[in-house]
């Protein structure tokens, strides 16, 4: 989206010791944010704002791409042709979301190749949720219902993010996410109304995905390193704990409707606030999975590296073909 790299002059010049000028630029930048103005690619922005956005948008893009893998696992084994068509469409959407987001990140002066290299080397993170396996068809339902449900709650406020290209990509993504969540709930609903064996599958999938879904909102506010600055910059509009609470409040009644039990013995509704109180999250598990020790971390990265490697000849052949045609047209 838009040409890149045009906005790199200003911070360099300011970085050469002109602190007063830099402070002036930063104050003007913050004033624009405070006035709810959007920042666009060629506008001056603090380097830290740019770096924060590149990190966040690219992690988000990588998550969409890696997120295709756990569900892709079930495309050939979907129980009906309709479920298969729906799942293909959903996985294709995830790929599309990755493309919108890489495009938004590229407006900040980083190349697609750099971003992909960061994913494949393990230098960049992606959402830890995708390092969990999908052993049954019910896991595909639980992902749509819970993981996409959590993603929607995380993503809706990002539609008002201060960085224009990111906000616009999120508007597009949010419009499509709702289909993802509903198809997941529909799978869970069918299983919950099915045979005893199917109900058991649905319950076990909920047991597997509940806690990892809560972890998707990130560490608690007291331990979140980036929250305060991101909120000042209006990259983030709500804290991790606020979003997590909202997710729990809307999801528990849905589980009740399905007749499934949330795997948290401490879960109960607080009549005064109307919020659900929940048990302690095992953050050591989160840290383990983020740092590469989840059940599928190695498998996911290997799948991405293999795709990159096996697609190389196609990319090179397409580029050679286009170069040959350009040369032929130039001669004609």
């Amino acid at each position, binding site marked *: *989206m*838009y*040409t*890149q790299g*045009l906005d790199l002059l*200003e911070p360099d010049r300011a970085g050469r010791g002109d602190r007063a000028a830099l402070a002036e630029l930063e104050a003007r930048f913050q004033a624009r944010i405070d006035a709810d103005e959007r920042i*666009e690619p*060629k*506008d*001056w922005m603090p380097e830290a704002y740019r770096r924060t956005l590149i990190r966040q948008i690219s992690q988000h893009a990588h998550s969409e791409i890696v997120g295709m893998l756990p569900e892709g696992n079930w495309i050939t084994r979907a129980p009906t042709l309709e479920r298969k068509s729906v799942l293909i*469409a959903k996985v*294709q*959407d995830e790929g*599309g979301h990755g*493309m*919108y987001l890489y*495009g*938004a990140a*590229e407006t900040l002066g980083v*190349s*697609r*190749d750099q971003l992909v290299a960061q994913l494949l080397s393990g230098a960049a993170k992606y959402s830890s949720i995708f390092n969990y396996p999908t052993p049954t068809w019910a896991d595909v339902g639980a992902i749509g219902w819970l993981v996409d449900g959590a993603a929607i709650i995380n993503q809706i406020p990002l539609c008002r993010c201060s960085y224009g290209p990111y906000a*616009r*990509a999120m508007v*597009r993504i949010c419009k*499509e996410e709702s289909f993802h969540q509903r198809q997941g709930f529909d799978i869970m609903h069918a299983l919950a109304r099915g045979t005893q064996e199917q109900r058991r599958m649905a319950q076990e999938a909920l047991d597997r995905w509940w806690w990892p879904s809560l972890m998707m909102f990130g560490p608690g506010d007291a331990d979140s390193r980036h929250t305060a600055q991101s909120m000042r910059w209006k990259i983030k509009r709500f804290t991790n704990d606020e979003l997590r609470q909202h997710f729990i409040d809307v999801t528990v009644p849905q589980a009740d409707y399905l007749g499934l039990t949330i795997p948290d013995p401490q879960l109960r509704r607080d009549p005064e606030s109307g919020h659900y109180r929940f048990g302690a999250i095992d953050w050591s598990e989160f840290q383990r999975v983020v740092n590469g020790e989840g059940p599928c971390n190695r498998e996911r990265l290997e799948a991405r590296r293999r795709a990159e490697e096996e697609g190389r000849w196609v*990319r*090179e052949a*397409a*580029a050679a*073909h*286009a*170069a040959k*045609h*350009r040369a032929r047209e130039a001669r004609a």
Partner: protein
Amino acid sequence: MSEDRASTSKEWPLYEVFIRARSGLEHKHVGSVHAVDARMAIEHARDVYTRRQEGVSIWVVRSADIVASDPAEADALFEPARDKVYRHPTFYDIPDEVKNL
């Protein structure tokens, strides 16, 4: 210059994508795609930006070929229009009795 870069860098060039949602409307910028040439850019734009019938026509243009105004010069560029409020119909006080004006 952009041609040279395309032939030396292995990364496919970036194209900006514009889509006409339906006939009667203008093409609107929706995002970007990487592609080896314009034809492939249109195919990629179709897959990435029109999975739900969002368009009836696609334009693509090499991002490197877009010339944009500099935000740092926005004041100099747009300021001259600021004090010419008489260009707006609301500038003029028309008596209430006068109709169709």
